[in-house]
């Protein structure tokens, strides 16, 4: 980062505070919130008879969030470009070429996809650690069934914050940082298709995270991340934060998916045919499709929820024409693709990294692509397995049982490709490889436990219990978070230019792997023994297992601290430069200089093979061979 700040006109630091940046954005957000709150009060106060039975002024809070976000975006400078263009000024690349700003460019609107990638990983990382801290509090509360560290109200707020933070912010944790950073480099593009939208999705997500955290000032929310209605309708103003958060996340996800789809489809360099696309890019394509198609459903559901709470419609209120099944349906039509939005990028990372560390081409490329597209297609047809015992469409249960179990076919393709790739390879146990292998084990357990939940007779016991909780932590934490760390250790040095400490990385992996399994393995047993999810107390005979789980969870927390220490120590203090190609990867991004130049490629790259030409002599790096064309 400092290496590239040697630009001709280095301004004094204080001048960076002038202009549109995070500071003005925060001022804009506060002003916007106050304006929105004022307008909401003006709407609410004159017609108290109509709104009288609400315990609070939800209109003011929701309008406050809306105007606050608009103010934030204007303060960030998103309005400048359209306004300038409307006034007749020529287009400018000033927002893209901000390398002279040094660190300051990470705190303002920047459309360089490499800057946005770093912004994403740091920004989501902050909220990831907030969500993780909530998990530590949850496990503290569950140490004892009778004496409570927090009490039921705070406990449920913690549960809701943890779940919502993880399922909301973490949806973009691979596509935000890594797809934004890597896809243009992998396909030979100089930027994303819509660079301003790219920056917009990031700042929208940050605004969403802040909105969710504000729930603690409004009494929290007691619905968990699923936000079921009509329970949500009873909620205090804290539930408005839930609505605001998920709406912003949904919008951010939708735009992120759109941007990535457009980039992959339209901006591939010559020679980057569909059958040469890196498998990670295929997984991004499959995920982006899900993001684009699933999140509008969430937005619709939330909008109806917001109307129920503010202008007293009755979409989810039984007895006045609404139905609580409506929320369940809409939420899970979004929610089940959502869990694959979380899982699919992990498939791509594992299959992208296994060839590098087995020194072999990816085995069964077409099967892997079919697997990813198959998962993303099937994921739209399984949502009612969340409602197996709800009494809705009971005749359709055999269909949803079948469609859910069918998903194990394309997932099985991914496993076969992983197995074929490592077979007779020359396997190197680097830190990223360890995390990929951790994924294999965790996702195997997660997938198999999913079969129990997809089978109706077995689901009657396990539904809504700690068993299902353990299942999705195996797929999401064991799947997504392990591959996230694989990606950080693998691409991180390329992104920042500095090496990670390998010894600390290995300590991080082994402590996380052991503690993770020791935490979530026993949860299967707790679920089968009859412990429902999201309870603040439990039968005393289950205390031994719960204490074991809590202590293991604290070890996960310590393991994450090891990672933080590694991150801060190696990236901020030691700063050992990473210049070459440490993994001897043949993928395009590793052939570029570190740090990657602002415009990525000097000349239009031409691809003549996929990124896995391992074992084919002569060893070349053909991906970025210049073709003489001008870019």
């Amino acid at each position, binding site marked *: 980062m400092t290496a590239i700040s040697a630009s001709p006109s280095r301004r004094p630091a204080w001048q960076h505070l002038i202009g549109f940046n995070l500071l003005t954005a925060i001022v804009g957000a506060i002003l916007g919130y106050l304006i929105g709150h004022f307008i909401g009060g003006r709407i609410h106060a004159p017609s108290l008879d109509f709104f009288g039975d609400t315990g609070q002024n939800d209109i003011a809070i929701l309008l406050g969030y809306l105007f606050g976000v608009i103010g934030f975006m204007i303060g960030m400078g998103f309005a400048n470009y359209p306004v300038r263009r409307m006034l007749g000024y020529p287009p400018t690349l000033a927002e893209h070429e901000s390398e002279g700003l040094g660190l300051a460019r990470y705190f303002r609107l920047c459309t360089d996809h490499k800057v946005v990638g770093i912004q994403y990983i740091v920004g989501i990382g902050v909220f990831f650690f907030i969500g993780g801290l909530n998990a530590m509090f949850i496990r503290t509360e569950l140490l004892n069934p009778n004496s409570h560290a927090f009490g039921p109200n705070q406990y449920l707020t913690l549960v809701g914050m943890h779940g919502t933070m993880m399922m909301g912010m973490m949806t973009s944790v691979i596509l935000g940082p890594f797809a934004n950073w890597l896809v243009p480099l992998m396909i030979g593009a100089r930027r994303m298709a819509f660079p301003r939208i790219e920056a917009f999705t990031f700042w929208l997500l940050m605004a969403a995270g802040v909105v969710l955290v504000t729930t603690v000032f409004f009494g929290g929310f007691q619905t968990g991340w699923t936000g079921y209605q009509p329970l949500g309708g009873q909620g205090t103003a804290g539930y408005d934060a839930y609505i605001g958060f998920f709406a912003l996340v949904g919008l951010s996800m939708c735009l992120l998916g759109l941007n990535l789809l457009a980039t992959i489809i339209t901006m591939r360099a010559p020679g980057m045919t569909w059958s040469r696309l890196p498998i990670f890019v295929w997984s991004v394509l499959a995920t982006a499709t899900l993001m684009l198609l699933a999140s509008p459903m969430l937005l619709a559901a939330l909008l109806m929820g917001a109307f129920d709470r503010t202008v007293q419609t009755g979409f989810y209120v039984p007895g006045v024409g609404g139905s609580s099944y409506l929320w369940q349906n809409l939420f899970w039509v979004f929610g089940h693709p959502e869990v694959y939005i979380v899982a699919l990028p992990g498939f791509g990372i594992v299959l992208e990294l296994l060839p590098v560390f087995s020194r072999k081409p990816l085995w069964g490329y077409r099967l892997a692509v079919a697997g990813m597209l198959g998962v993303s297609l099937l994921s739209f047809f399984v949502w009612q397995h969340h409602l197996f015992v709800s009494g809705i469409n009971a005749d359709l249960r055999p269909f949803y*049982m079948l469609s859910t179990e069918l998903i194990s076919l394309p997932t099985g393709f991914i496993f076969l490709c992983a197995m074929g790739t490592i077979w007779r390879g020359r396997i190197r146990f680097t830190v990223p490889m360890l995390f990929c292998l951790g994924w294999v084990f965790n996702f195997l357990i997660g997938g198999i436990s999913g079969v129990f939940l997809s089978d109706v007779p077995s689901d009657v016991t396990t539904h*809504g219990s700690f068993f299902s909780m353990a299942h999705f932590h195996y797929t999401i934490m064991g799947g997504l978070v392990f591959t996230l760390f694989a990606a950080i250790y693998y691409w991180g040095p390329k992104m920042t230019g500095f090496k990670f400490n390998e010894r600390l990385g290995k300590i991080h992996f082994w402590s996380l792997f052991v503690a993770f399994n020791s935490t979530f393995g026993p949860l299967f047993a707790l679920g089968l023994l009859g412990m429902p999810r999201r309870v603040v107390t439990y039968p005393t005979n289950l205390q031994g297992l719960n204490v074991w789980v809590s202590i293991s969870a604290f070890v996960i927390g310590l393991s994450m601290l090891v990672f933080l220490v590694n991150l801060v120590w190696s990236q901020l203090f030691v700063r050992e430069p990473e210049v070459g190609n440490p993994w001897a990867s043949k993928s395009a991004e590793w052939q570029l200089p570190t740090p990657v130049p602002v415009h990525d490629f000097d000349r239009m790259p031409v691809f003549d093979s996929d990124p896995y030409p391992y074992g084919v002599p002569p060893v070349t790096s053909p991906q970025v061979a210049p073709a003489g064309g001008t870019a």
Partner: protein
Amino acid sequence: MNEVHHFRRVLLIWVVSSVIFTPLVVFVLAPGIPPGDGTVQSAGQVTDNAVLFGLSTPIALAVLVFFAYSLIVFRERQPEAVLDGPPVRGHAGIQLWWIVVTSVIVLSLAGYGTARMLDDGAGGGQGPNPIAKPDPSQPPLQVQVIAQQWKFLFRFPGYGGVETAHLELPSNRMIEFHVTSLDVIHSFWAYQLGVKADATPGADNIAYVQTKKPLGFDIHCAELCGVWHGYMFDKGAVVAPTQFTAWIRQQQVRFAPIRKSLPPYSTTYFPEPQKRAG
């Protein structure tokens, strides 16, 4: 050593480990897995879990053995030099076989689960028009479960619509639960009975269970329903039919004054005033 040898060794280890572990899992571990054989439905769930465990053990072992073998045997022994493995990019036959075998497993799993579910309803909530109905020769005992924040109440339409605060059921009897809610979504989970049915306001969710011998059981709410969700639990009992008759008579006498102010028995209720936001 050539490829065929490696493959045969993996196969051998897998067969041996499966032969050892699968019976252990199916006959030792799985029968001990809750919810036990207190009712026909819960015993069915135990059987179902045993089948799933029996099937998933060799599958999990296949992947684990393959990975463990590969990671040990094919590890890089000269990490200094970067050497590539053989450039194999796939094998159509293996891929085809994998697709065929996994498809057969998945389809038979779905078929088995459907058959088990239609057999006795598996204790799950089936909505107002159940597809898995019990033998009509013996009329079932109807029990309405009314969930509300944060308590389950029970009504017996066959006994004058009496409403009780706790649940007792006769042994060796088909029970027809009608689960509904007065406010938000709850879930009626009678653990040892093997019954789980969501309680949704405005909906009648029917679940069947065939009780066997007398048994104490736990009732939990299994769907997050607000602040005191964790404390929404109760104890129930399956008792001998004579004891049940005595209990329900006692309840009829005890709750007679309350019965007068209750609404007439219905499959759903909407409390007055309509509960709205806030």
